[in-house]
């Protein structure tokens, strides 16, 4: 492995060795190059943000990380080992959970049931024992429910426990989706635009939850976000992408001072 040294954040957390390393990733869709030769790492315990203008390839990057897309070139190292072409569910089983940009919950199901779904990767009993509902299956369900209830408490959504998620406002749906991802007890949590479409208050709440998840469970978090204010406030390190290329990487302060980043966001005059 290239660099195993740790670093300490301004607020005193110690960030460990890389969990996930992207090495020279290139992703093409036919003739379109979505990601071009990008390398960066996500370290144990950090909040890593990926930002960039529309169409920069951020979501594609996230899809590479969680194994939905397979890059044509480059390799992904997970805990220092090269990751082969796995299916998304296999990667989920390795402890990588995610939320989606445009909410992918089961609208007709209650908050509780939606979050219970997140426990499925941890389920060891088969369908038959669930039908019989004796012994192991029942015990497992009880354990799962206990874990889910802790998450419900954590996210302060007790009031909507039994409400079908389709009836919830957007901000709360986002929170339920975060709950479902947390239910998988991930070691790496991927958030695809967790604040999109939220008002200021909802953004503040969500930021708080992201920080608390990181603090409480020590979860490593990689997030894509448009809102620069949020990113600069909560991220430890930021990768900036533009047109599929990495144009900046570093602490929020470093990135903000980077001329390429300023150009990408504010635009430059063309001669």
């Amino acid at each position, binding site marked *: 492995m290239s660099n195993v040294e740790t670093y300490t954040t301004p607020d005193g957390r110690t960030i460990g060795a890389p969990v996930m390393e992207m090495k020279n990733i290139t992703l093409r869709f036919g003739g379109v190059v979505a990601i071009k030769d990008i390398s960066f790492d996500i370290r144990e315990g950090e909040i890593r943000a990926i930002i960039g203008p529309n169409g920069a390839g951020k979501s594609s990057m996230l899809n590479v990380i969680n194994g939905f897309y397979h890059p044509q070139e480059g390799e992904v190292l997970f805990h220092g080992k090269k990751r082969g072409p796995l299916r998304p569910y296999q990667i989920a089983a390795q402890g990588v959970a995610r939320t989606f940009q445009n909410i992918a919950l089961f609208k007709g199901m209650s908050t509780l049931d939606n979050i219970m779904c997140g426990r499925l990767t941890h389920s060891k009993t088969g369908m038959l024992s669930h039908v019989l509902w004796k012994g192991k299956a029942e015990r497992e369900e009880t354990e799962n*429910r*206990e874990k889910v209830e802790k998450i419900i408490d954590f996210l*302060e959504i*007790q*009031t909507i*426990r039994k409400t079908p998620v389709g009836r919830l406002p957007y901000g709360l749906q986002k929170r339920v989706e975060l709950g479902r991802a947390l239910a998988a007890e991930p070691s790496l949590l991927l958030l695809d635009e967790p604040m999109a479409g939220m008002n200021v208050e909802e953004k503040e709440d969500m930021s708080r939850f992201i920080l608390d998840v990181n603090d*409480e469970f020590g979860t490593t978090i990689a997030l894509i976000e448009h809102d620069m204010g949020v990113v600069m406030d909560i991220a430890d390190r930021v990768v900036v992408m533009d047109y599929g290329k990495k144009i900046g990487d570093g602490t929020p302060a470093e990135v903000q001072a980077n001329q390429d980043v300023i150009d990408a966001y504010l635009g430059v005059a063309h001669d």
Partner: protein
Amino acid sequence: MIEGRTLEQDLDTFPKLLARNATKFADRPAFREKEYGIWQSWTWSEVRSEVEAMALGFLDLGMKKGDHVAIAGRNRPHFYWAMLAAQHVGAVPVPVYKDAVADEMAYVLDHCGARFAIVEDQEQVDKILEIEDRIPGLEHVVYVDRRGLRKYDHTTLHALDTIQETGRVKRDEYQPELDRCVAGLTPEDTCVMLYTSGTTGRPKGVVMSNYNMLMSAKNSCEFDNLNETDIVLAYLPLAWIGDFIFSVAQACWAGFCVGCPESEETMQHDLREIGPTYFFAPPRFFEGLLTSVMIRMEDASDFKRKLFRKYMDHAKKVGPALLDGKPVSAADKMKYQIGKALIYGPLLNTLGLTNIRVGYTAGEAIGPEIFDFYRSLGINLKQLYGQTEGCVYITQQPDGEVRIDTVGVPSPGVEVRIADNGEVFYRSPGVFQEYYNNPESTADTKDAEGWVATGDAGYFEKESGHLRIIDRAKDVGKLANGAMFAPKFVENKLKFFPDILEVVVFGNGREKCTAFINIDLTAVGNWAERNNIAYASYQELAGHPRVLDTIRDHVEEVNKSVAEDEMLSGCQIHRFLVLHKELDADDGELTRTRKVRRRIIEEKFAVLLTGLYDGSEEVFVDTEVTYEDGRKGSISATLQLRDAAVVPVSNKIAAE
């Protein structure tokens, strides 16, 4: 010697009571709390060991007799235990409103010189840290919920369960000291200090002794036969005396169980799951509940609605009589039983009120319709009249003597007299010791013989011996023409309309009466929805011409009823406006217990008041508002002022 003034020696302090309960009711539930989706419960003997561990831990932190311990949080068993634990050490718990803004909290904590603060979570810890330099006496902050606090500096910050753990580990070291503390407690020692909400001026710390609290608890438990099989839901603010009486004093005295809701928002649902047998709620609560029932019935199918109306009409006719044990014809009884099976039973069940044996309401006047609704369903809902300074109880209604317009007979052990100016005075074993560090206010309120001025004007009804309260003594004034002015009287009549949430009537020393009105967003919003009226905000709905028309109709209806009262016919409302914002405790317009602060509202909205009296059609106003997190903003609006028709008053004035 008046009855209800002596305590048994082995039950005269809170630690003694807890020790008795831990043996007498050892395996009976003492506290329940819904957490992680299920009801967790603690028996009395478990509670004692939790409280003891906490008290030992407090000793380790250096807590001493006479220290003040501020407590801010929602209703959770941990806070009740912390209060009991502090009492074991001889310290004085001071519950404060957890949603108080930083400024209010700083005042209270500094005023009582709190050395310790026990708070709920990060939000509260942050608030305390923000005001730290204004409370130099504060040494340790203890929190219950660890979340988000891991990175904080823990030199003076502690988790409550760590303190308990320390207490358990160091039991041998501190047990003798704790025993000495408990043995040294006398009934005269302060058991709790509560800050009054302060309708006028800064809050005052009301000092209560063990004797005050336990005597009141004993008398009231005996009055209503409360015992260890009862259960209550603790959902009212910890800082309010009522919650201390119901959830601590009476619970310890009678040994009944206290249920704590999962969160403030789930209270209604938790109420239904707990099914309390003994319940207190302010009129506002019953009103809100009735409004939500009515709104849901409006949306129900035709058949259900008709059935509901038919049986509710019948319940109104015979329900209260059945409850009071008065004779009712067999046919009516039969019909009531059918109604019970079809409507009343299921309705009570949905509301979580099925098991109620004793229910009380107090604090404000309750609307006759609202009161009758619950009584007709068979709920033994009664009224009481009380004050922080008297450990709540002054008068209360005995079973079978419940009426809407009185507040009952003096509670056991309480003497009541009416002064010449109509002000109500009382003397009881529950009467407070003093206002903390405020001898002038103490002397103003309590005289040498122990009589306390309530500040309310009222009189005893000759035939029944029940007390009737008219208004705050200081709010009763005179109109310019000398007629009597009692704003509450008119406000209460208006507030009984579901559309109207809050009213402030002005007129003292003026020619005519005028009013500021707040609409009820739930009721009016639902009405708007049914009538296809679009609105984007409270402000927009409040200014809608059709809403103003409806409110005018209400005002005129009230004017008619006010005109019938001989003494107060001058209090009819000539002009009114609907405010562009809801009156809010965060803006200082209401007290934390949601009573209007007249003077402050009068000053703040002086422009509007002038407009009402100079005949303007509309007035522009810009108001500062405070958000929950303490930030400030402003709302501006142009308000329409409306005239309301009044009924010509008695011939005498008309002739002038």
